[in-house]
């Protein structure tokens, strides 16, 4: 078996008496789409925050491409190749869609402590930005202020921003949250395409989407991973059905 790209080793986090992350161990293999599902309050968001460095775990280790990143800040993790999207869309609303992506390209291409030339005139950054926008289907919206994009378009923009950081792992926090049925369909198709080229860790509520996309699924309940497996394995797992699927209409 190949080395995992991301490995969580016995992560733990308590808030008061509550074990939000209770000994989570998980491997994301290169090339796979790995989904983390779980009912509300299972600790998915905290887990994402731990992986991206917004919340420090009380104990345990996070290994990324063999390197211990448990104590690195978010910017340093991103530079190591870990890109994320946010559950609540996080973009620079006053920038054009292109400048949003160009900012990410700039972070990846040389120093940002450059003071003389107008950044909007840098062809390399603009080309990188346009390529990423094209990939997510936003090429014709490049000049539009990001704040005026539709919800689904903002979601796609955030993915384009993540792509422009040249990530080795895409961490997508509920990328379908709040999207309408048509937008959801488009985003699922997009994620499927990205899955061919990228390793993705997907935290998602939409079960249909997860079953359509994921190579493997880990089920998180009360801060613990109760099962990890392929889609049929998870569908057939009695414990998962009892803990999760049974109480959902999925």
């Amino acid at each position: 078996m190949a080395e995992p790209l991301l490995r969580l080793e016995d992560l733990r986090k308590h808030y008061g008496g509550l074990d939000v992350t209770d000994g989570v161990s998980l491997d994301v293999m290169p090339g796979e789409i790995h989904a983390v599902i779980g009912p509300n309050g299972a600790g998915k968001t905290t887990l994402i925050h731990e992986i991206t460095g917004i919340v420090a775990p009380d104990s345990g280790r996070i290994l990324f491409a063999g390197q211990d990143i448990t104590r690195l800040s978010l910017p340093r993790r991103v530079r190591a190749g870990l890109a994320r999207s946010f559950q609540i869309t996080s973009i620079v609303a006053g920038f054009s869609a292109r400048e949003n992506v160009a900012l990410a390209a700039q972070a990846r291409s040389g120093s940002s402590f450059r003071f003389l030339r107008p950044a909007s005139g840098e062809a390399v950054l603009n080309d990188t930005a346009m390529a990423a926008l094209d990939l997510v289907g936003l090429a014709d919206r490049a000049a539009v202020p990001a704040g005026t994009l539709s919800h689904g378009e903002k979601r796609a923009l955030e993915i384009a921003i993540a792509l422009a950081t040249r990530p080795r792992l895409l961490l997508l926090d509920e990328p379908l949250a709040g999207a309408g049925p048509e937008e959801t369909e488009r985003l699922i198709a997009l994620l499927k395409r990205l899955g061919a080229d990228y390793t993705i860790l997907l935290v998602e509520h939409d079960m249909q989407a997860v079953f359509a996309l994921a190579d493997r699924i880990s089920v998180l309940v009360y801060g613990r991973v109760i099962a990890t497996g392929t889609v049929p394995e998870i569908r057939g797992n009695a414990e998962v059905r009892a803990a999760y699927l049974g109480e959902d209409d999925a």
Partner: protein
Amino acid sequence: MTREALLPLAVLAALAVAPLAGFGGSYELTLLARAMILGMAAVSLSFLVGGAGLVSLGHAASLGVGAYAVAILDAHGVTEALIVLPVAVAAAAGFSLLTGAVAIRTSGVHFIMITLAFGQMAFFTTSSLAAYGGDDGYTLYGRTEVAGTRLLENRLAFHYICLGLLALTWGLCAMLLASRFGRVLRAARENAQRVEAVGLAPYPFRLVGYAIAGALGGLAGVLLANATEFVSPATLSWQRSGELLFMVILGGVGRLWGAILGALAFVLLETWLAEQMQHWKLVFGPLLVLAVLFLKGGLSGLVARRHG
């Protein structure tokens, strides 16, 4: 070039022809110089507030550090601009770098309060400088010399030097905001989390921006000391910081050149009202409030909508 890009040049051009168009008397030139100098400080503050989202209520401190550098050097017989200017600018940048290193770790109201606190600290420090006049201030022996000449004594030359440095300040800030560096600052103003999530920590960018604004404030301070040939703690009172912030808002936060309009309007209105009546502040205050309430985008927004 869009028409809006021409508006700041129009403002600078108007200031350039003002002495030839009936505003060449010593009274008018003194007033315009004051407005342009405070305009420089306001532009550098606008770079911080509108560009980087750092609302400082202590910007007068950098002005004061620059002005006191002139006074202190003057007291020790150093009056050459080639020395005074770099020393003053470096001192103001250093002051901003040190205080900014602490202040920028905070945000929002905390940032406002901590910059105010550092400003007050500088104020009381200058008040206690007995050798340089303490509370009473310090009168310069003369204006700073430029390469041994008494160029600054000439009111018209002083006018154009102020104008040139104002244009330089504006151009520099505009260039910085458009650069990669400025893009990070602008993005972090709107969404710091987004900047971190593309792999950049906003802190060092903000700190460098803060130091640059401080350096430009120090430059304005050198001119202010020369304009009045007098330096006192009032130069860096917190009221002065508030006035600078007000000029920025009056001119329009989103446009750097708005701060020039804001400073001109503020200084001219203040002077004119003070000549009309004894209790002019009773009128000035409400006028400012109305301007903030009803001038969306400030004076520059108004002009841009008319001519943009």
